[in-house]
């Protein structure tokens, strides 16, 4: 708790009063977090006091500008985890590049995993596949393949689905890709971070204005900060060693 207060103060000092109410904004969507599947490798890593995470993603894991890398959700995830896991060395590396489909990400996944040796791979995908109307069978197969590769090097996986983007909603058919992602997550017993529903809730409640046209980065940065924090919550909850998980009887 003290760490969070200190962090808030530090952020306050860095970014001004707009950041003051940060955690409350994020936690509005906390009930959207589902952690029905365990993350055994993360549990092990936490016991060993060292957690390496690889974020695999496309354009919506990035923010533009000179401070983009610092403010995008992978860096915020590292910050939030470090804050909540005192004594654990948390390191988040990224393999993020705009406009990549799931299959394109899988192609270079082997070397990326070998370099990062993570206990957890956070995989953001779906948007580009929907924009390019990739065959949904191929999309699902790429997800299965990527998860298998990660597991073969003893890494857990968390999937992140597409952003909620109200203005382009009638132009990108996300639905069928989101469905396939959910099915893969259920089948592979992988937690799904439902970014779409979280952001939709923020938009519906007016927490963040996702409709307005702007060149400014402030809302984008706050959204990414919240996503990083909520993602940290999911990872910690799913990795809790003592909590009996729903599917343990399987």
């Amino acid at each position, binding site marked *: 708790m003290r760490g969070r207060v200190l962090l808030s103060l530090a952020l306050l000092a860095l970014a001004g009063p707009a950041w003051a109410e940060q955690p409350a904004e994020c936690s509005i969507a906390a009930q959207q977090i589902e952690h029905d599947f365990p993350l055994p490798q993360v549990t092990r890593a936490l016991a060993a006091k060292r957690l390496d995470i690889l974020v695999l993603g496309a354009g919506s894991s990035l923010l533009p500008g000179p401070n983009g890398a610092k403010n995008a959700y992978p860096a915020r995830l590292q910050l939030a985890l470090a804050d909540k896991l005192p004594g654990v060395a948390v390191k988040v590396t990224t393999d993020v590049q705009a406009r990549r489909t799931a299959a394109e990400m899988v192609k270079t996944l082997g070397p990326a995993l070998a370099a990062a040796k993570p206990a957890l791979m956070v995989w953001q995908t779906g948007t580009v596949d929907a924009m390019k109307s990739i065959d949904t*069978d191929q999309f699902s197969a790429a997800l299965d393949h990527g998860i298998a590769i990660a597991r073969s090097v003893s890494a857990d996986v968390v999937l992140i689905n597409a952003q909620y983007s109200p203005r382009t909603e*009638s132009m990108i058919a996300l639905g069928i890709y989101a469905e396939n992602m*959910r099915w893969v997550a259920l089948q592979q017993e992988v937690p799904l971070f439902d970014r779409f529903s979280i952001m939709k809730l923020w938009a519906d409640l007016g927490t963040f204005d996702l409709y307005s046209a702007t060149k400014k980065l402030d809302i984008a940065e706050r959204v990414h900060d919240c996503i990083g924090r909520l993602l940290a919550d999911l990872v910690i909850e799913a990795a809790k060693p003592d909590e009996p998980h729903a599917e343990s009887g399987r």
Partner: protein
Amino acid sequence: MAKVTTERDLRLDLFRGIALWLIFLDHIPSNAVSWITIRNYGFSDATEIFVFISGYTAAFVYGRAMREHGFIVASARVLKRAWQIYVAHVFLFAIYLAEIAYVAHSFSNPLYSEEMGVLDFLKSPDVTIVQALLLKFKPVNMDVLPLYIVLLFWFPPVLWLLLRAPSIALASSAVLYALMWQFEWNIPAYPQGEWLFNPFAWQLLFVFGAWCALGGAQRLSRWVTSRVTIGLAFAYLLFAFFIAMTWYIPRLAVFVPKFVGDAIYPIDKTNLDVLRIIHFLSLAVITVWFVPRDWPVLKSRFFWPAIVCGQHSLETFCLGVFLAFAGHFVFTEVSNRLLTQVIVSVTGIVIMVAAAAMVSWYRRIERQGPGPRPPSIKPGYAGGDA
């Protein structure tokens, strides 16, 4: 030749009308009201209903034309219908272009730089428009009409065969469906990928509908009304409902054995997964059981709004696509509160009904009016389109 009942089955119009409403509700992105639509409670959705009934009515209307006036005249009518649908599709594309161009020049947000890439095709409108005219570039939610066009384009020879050897026609359709799965046939799309509704797959439902219209339904009636079939249909619908619930409540997924999950996922919409067909057939069996053909309420005012929409399906469908664009525009520009979503959804359906009623009225005065022009449509086509 197959025996055909002469009176139009109002249940078809009713359920096609309802399917058109559901398609409209599903086409408005993030519409809370779309929670009532059937796709959330099982495997199939309104598209199956629409394609099946379209096949049924096409065979009903053009089958009679083919028997009375021969292959050439009936084929000409079918192709004229396909052309009308093509023109309607191009009209909708023009509206879509206007909408997307508006978003492109009025919206930017660093949070969505990836998503804005979807507007890139505006940089080469020449290619995009030609590809759209070739039915290769199809924007979101504009996949059903191209499927319908292709199905009608090939319909004359299929209808010819259906009238002579219905079993062979249906079997050929099933073989084509099986070959499609085996060899992964589909039509390429632009800029990449393939058709969202694979015509090689969806033709099965269309031909099955046509087969039912040309006497197949009578042949099946003994099976459809048997208790065993109805029981199986109920059981399957329950199973699909439970599986659908695990999508929203992942906690329930523990009760789905691994081999079941491996067997059913992914449920392929593009290629009309067998699970979807069975789901649709189960729905149809239960519907036929609940709603008899001569149910007097079908002629009452209560069902008239849906029936009139179903009778003028092309106009209603196109209007629905346009209204879904407009509805989404209201959500983003005005308000997306729940109340607005309900108002937009209800208003859209009211407009669809009003437009269908107007088309119906106009057809009537064109046929009956003692004006100088001869009636352009032959009477006796039992009101409504294919």
